[in-house]
């Protein structure tokens, strides 16, 4: 069959060329160091833990039996299947790449052959996914037939999920052709699920709840090979799972649904998403062709930095706006105040839990936020030639670029702080010195510091972009591989190190100020006093950083650094 030959040729050649090009680029030190770092990461954090003992794969051993793990797994898989039916929009279709559309759609293949192509492609991908899961769960180290057993289990699970994606996509495409809109479909599915759960609840109330496990049957069939105890049991489990794969393949093959238009639209969307990622716009959710409301009026008297803030705020996710922020603040305030007042159902404990989670999330956001909020110079690097043509000094462009992510990170951090200040009341008065006055003082001091802290944090990855633009380019490298993973790890490690160095003076000064003054003025006032030198240090670091990096941007040789 020509379509099968084409698929095999494409897959094998792509794999061979990809490996060859990854090996070739190891001649460049940045990829070589990245590969070493990536390999070290995999060895120390993945393989070392699984080597010699079968690792996580043991958890799925037959000895573990079809106990609660199997039921939980089946429930998770069932939820995932429901999501597959809920998620696709109007343009649900088979997923082809733009190149596949260009080459295969006008080619002399019947529609069914294209479906064969996509299904076989999905099964090959499922197999590669199975090999990957086998590696990271340590199943590769169990030896002999056990490896094949696990490989079969992973493959049947992956293949069933992949094929079900296609079943759902084609069924939805058919429903759309019949005039069922996406919202109505979702409402119907959700209503069906709610009704089903309610009916089952009533049934379970009258009978044994275990008798309702048949609902999880398809998911259990797909997962059962993981929990088989012996060779015979395994075969008895694998056969129905493989049968389910064959059944879904047959259903898809029999569905006479014209998928071409939806697939072309999907391919274009994917192509645009890849182009956006290559342009460094990882978090660009602005939506195709949707006009965004300006965050503020860009008046003539505003400095040029405000123009960058204005532009980058509009490129931020649509939910990053004043209304959402204020609404979230009101909800947090009202719900935590209400929770604290409801002692009848342990409301204060819930409020405390929310506050602890908020503090944890705040810490995570401060650590990882700069990696996600990239609508600064990193996002604009692809347009560096345009930026450099502006009659604006480099330091002002850099400062302006930093503003939008700083505003967004600050706003989010303020919400977390609000939740922490309101809810951080340890149950039973366990920390008596943590008075409301102290909480509010700490909250306000941190809130004042936060914009400067966020700006300093964002300065670090932007500095890396300007000082090592070739390394910063790796963020746009979509080909993946051990070397690219390693490069990202090195960049992240470098950022953490710079952050520690940047934060150290502020922490020491704040600690010293509180230690020296709290005996005289009390802890709340000492915290306020400590905020002053911290603000000074952050401002100084920011000014020095922007002053030093500005000329680096002016001198950035785009032709030498940014071309692939």
């Amino acid at each position, binding site marked *: 069959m020509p379509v099968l030959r*084409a698929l095999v040729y494409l897959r094998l*050649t792509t794999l061979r*060329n990809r490996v060859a*090009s990854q090996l070739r680029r190891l001649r460049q030190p940045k990829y070589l160091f990245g590969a070493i770092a990536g390999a070290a990461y995999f060895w120390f954090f993945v393989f070392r833990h699984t080597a010699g003992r079968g690792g996580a794969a043991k958890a799925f051993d037959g000895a573990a039996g079809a106990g609660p793990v199997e039921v939980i797994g089946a429930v998770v898989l069932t939820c995932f299947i429901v999501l597959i039916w809920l998620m696709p929009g109007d343009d649900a279709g088979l997923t082809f790449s733009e*190149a596949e*559309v*260009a*080459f295969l759609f*006008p080619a002399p293949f019947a529609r069914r052959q294209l479906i064969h192509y996509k299904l076989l492609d999905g099964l090959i991908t499922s197999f590669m996914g199975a090999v990957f899961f086998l590696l990271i769960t340590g199943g590769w180290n169990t030896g002999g037939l056990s490896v094949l057993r696990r490989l079969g289990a992973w493959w049947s699970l992956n293949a069933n999920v992949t094929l079900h994606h296609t079943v759902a996509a084609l069924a939805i495409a058919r429903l759309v052709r019949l005039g069922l809109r996406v919202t109505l479909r979702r409402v119907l599915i959700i209503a069906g699920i709610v009704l089903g759960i309610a009916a089952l609840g009533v049934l379970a109330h009258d009978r044994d709840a275990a008798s309702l496990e048949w609902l999880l049957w398809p998911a259990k069939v797909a997962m059962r090979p993981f929990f088989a105890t012996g060779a015979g049991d395994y075969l008895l489990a694998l056969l129905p799972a493989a049968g389910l794969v064959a059944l879904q393949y047959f259903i898809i093959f029999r569905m006479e649904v014209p998928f*071409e238009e939806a697939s072309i639209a999907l391919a274009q969307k994917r192509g645009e998403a890849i182009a956006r990622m290559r342009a460094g716009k990882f978090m660009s959710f602005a939506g195709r062709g949707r006009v965004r409301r300006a965050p503020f009026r860009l008046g003539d008297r505003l400095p040029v930095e405000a123009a960058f803030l204005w532009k980058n705020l509009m490129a931020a996710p649509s939910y990053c706006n004043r209304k959402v922020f204020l609404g979230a603040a009101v909800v947090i305030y009202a719900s935590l105040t209400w929770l604290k007042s409801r002692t009848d159902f342990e409301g204060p404990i819930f409020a405390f839990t929310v506050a602890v989670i908020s503090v944890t999330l705040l810490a995570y956001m401060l650590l990882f936020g700069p990696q996600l909020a990239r609508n600064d110079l990193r996002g604009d690097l692809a347009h560096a030639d345009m930026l450099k043509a502006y009659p604006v000094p480099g330091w002002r462009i850099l400062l302006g670029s930093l503003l939008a992510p700083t505003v967004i990170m600050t706003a989010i951090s303020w919400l977390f702080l609000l939740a922490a200040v309101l809810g951080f009341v340890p149950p039973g008065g366990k920390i008596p010195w943590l008075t409301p006055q102290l909480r509010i003082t700490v909250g306000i001091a941190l809130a004042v510091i936060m914009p400067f802290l966020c700006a300093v944090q964002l300065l670090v990855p932007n500095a890396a972009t300007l000082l090592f633009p070739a390394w910063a380019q790796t963020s746009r490298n979509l080909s993946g591989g051990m070397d690219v993973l390693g490069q990202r790890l090195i960049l992240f490690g470098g950022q953490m190190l710079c952050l520690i160095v940047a934060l150290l003076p502020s922490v020491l000064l704040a600690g010293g100020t509180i230690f020296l003054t709290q005996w005289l003025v009390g802890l709340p006032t000492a915290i306020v006093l400590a905020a002053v030198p911290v603000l000074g240090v952050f401002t100084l670091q920011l000014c020095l950083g922007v002053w030093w990096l500005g000329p680096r941007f002016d001198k950035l040789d785009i032709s030498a650094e940014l071309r692939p």
Partner: protein
Amino acid sequence: MIEVSGLCKRYGNFPAVNDLSFVVQPGEVMGLVGPNGAGKTTTLRCATGIIPATAGTLRVAGIDLAADPVAAKRQLAFFPDEPRLFEHLTVRQHLAFAAKIYQVPQHETRAEALLAEMEIADKADQLPGELSRGMKQKLVIACGLLHAPKVMYFDEPLTGLDPLGIRRMKDTIRRLGREGAAIILSSHLLSLLEEVCTHVLIMKQGQRIAGGTLPEVVAQFSQGEADVSLEEVFIRATGGSET
């Protein structure tokens, strides 16, 4: 030969193409023009079998596209406006892949000749990422010509080409026409159509406004004036607006 009869294509309730009919004989190059949203790309996609038509008959080299799509598609080549290539296949491997799709036996000799003709033979072992846009375009054309199609569809073929590339592309299209291929060329560049096409079809809002040989269409809208350009004809035919 390309025969389109009563072609209709609807997206929901929106008629993208409505009752369109035309014929392109072997050796003819027909320019498809119209304002944005006129239905040119949809027409091309339907005529190549990329998307199914809602109604109408499409015949490629005498073969009904709906009845026997595989045989019909074997006779045609489609060159999209944007060269879309596989990231990890070299130039030569793209040709090998196209040969597999179209079942071209012993394609190597013809592939080498096409690479030389397109002046990308020295890039044969390079990946698309290393090629300029013009070279990618040439590779797409080489892939399309590999199976010696009788019918060809070009969608904005000059996009992104340098002056030399434009010259070569025009020569290639003219030569293919002379060699007996039936060609449809969709473009906004009216000067290209004047230079390359033997026939022209003007569309607006999914419908045929005018069609025929270039002199016939010009005569239809010249209102007795001499030396009326195709640009002027286009503006008069479409009323100077998209709607």
